[in-house]
């Protein structure tokens, strides 16, 4: 295969990064179905507390947002990312991959089966409050939305580098709460509702 020319980079105009596009309405269900269970990987069960992580996505006017794609990326029960950048990755749980997908139904409801993440450790020793990363893609969004889910019954570390950037008043919206109505099959449920726009809007990060 011929090599494409390397993009010229200048002070003012670096390489043009390919323009992001909307996922549109027709992302195949086959790409999502069965991808929302993170508690098993290649025949092994994940270690740690298995949970349901679920909620609704709504847009302005509290209208349910159906047909969105949600992607989750998180560390395992010990807070280890299955990735070579994590200094502890050799000890990552072989039964936990860390990535999953779910979609919202017509009522805006989504559900992941996953593991309560542990506190991750930055290479400089900073301990991060237990969290999972969430990406939202939908019609109407020409770029993805990224946010972070924390868990209300888990200990907060001092000065989490991401949480501290969020205005105090908006921080509670980044916490999933234990919700008995979501518990099923013996697993506890955590509710994380997303407001794309409007009153109670979920904080999203620069991407």
């Amino acid at each position: 295969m011929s090599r494409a020319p390397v993009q010229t980079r200048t002070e003012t105009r670096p390489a043009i990064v390919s323009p992001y596009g909307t996922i549109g309405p027709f992302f195949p269900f086959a790409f999502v179905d069965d991808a929302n269970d993170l508690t098993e990987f290649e025949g092994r069960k994940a270690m740690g507390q298995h949970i349901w992580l679920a909620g609704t996505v709504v847009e302005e006017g509290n209208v349910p947002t159906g047909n969105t794609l949600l992607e989750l990326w998180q560390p395992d029960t010990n807070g280890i990312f299955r990735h070579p950048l994590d200094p502890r990755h050799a000890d990552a749980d072989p039964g936990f991959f860390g990535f999953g997908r779910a979609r919202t139904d017509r009522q805006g409801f989504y559900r992941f089966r996953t593991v309560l993440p542990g506190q991750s450790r930055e290479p400089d020793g900073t301990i991060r409050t237990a969290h999972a990363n969430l990406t939202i893609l939908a019609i109407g969004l020409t770029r993805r939305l990224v946010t972070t889910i924390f868990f209300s019954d888990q200990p907060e570390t001092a000065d989490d580098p991401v949480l501290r950037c969020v205005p105090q008043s908006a921080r509670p919206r980044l916490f999933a709460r234990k919700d008995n109505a979501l518990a099923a099959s013996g697993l506890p449920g955590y509710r994380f509702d997303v407001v794309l726009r409007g009153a109670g809007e979920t904080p999203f990060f620069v991407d």
Partner: protein
Amino acid sequence: MLIHFETEASPGVRQYLPYDDRTQTLRQIKDYPRSFTRVPAQPLIDRPLTLSELTGPTEIERRLPTGNADFSCLVPGGPRALGQFMTVAGRITDEDGAPLAGALIEIWQANASGKYIHEYDSHQAPLDPNFIGQGRFLTDAEGGYQFRTIKPGGYPVGSNDWWWRPPHIHFSIFGMSWMDRFITQIFFPGEPLNEADLLLNGIPDPEARQRVMFEPLPTKVTKTLNILEFRRDFVLRGKSKTPELL
């Protein structure tokens, strides 16, 4: 804004700048349904990148299995889907021009009549029994990829057909981390519908807009096959740390 994240304990950390809005699709496009009820009203919050964002799924094909990259028929040698047979080839690099090997690509597209296999597609057009139009494959060691398919048809949006989308193929790409997870759609040059498409023209910069167009290669006429060939390279966000930026 530059995002710094490096320590001696983590060599190989990459640098990700926020997407440059000048090269991207507008966040809100006039008349584009739902962009004014879904795009957050509050400003996006700046935060440092931690391991959580700088890592991402590796060997994603172990979770999202790949298949063969010939979408022009259901089984090799089987009946071909209706429509113009075509091939796409290209290369995925980062902002340094370094190839992204083993990147997972997902594509999905309408059939030649502009119909998707999807529960929510209400377009009154037939499905093609020989066409699925969705699948996954990986880039090679040079970041190269290729697939065969048939050219998709345009399709109407909304119940009163007020907007016809020009033919396009959707791409979803898993790069090296959570930061270069990428989704877009690629258009065909010369399509009259391109001129009025809200999404294509939602990229204000003409040079950037070219980056979501297939580039036609000269048509090859061989003894057996008249092949329509296209090329599309992608530059995903991210670069190796370079001294002048440290």
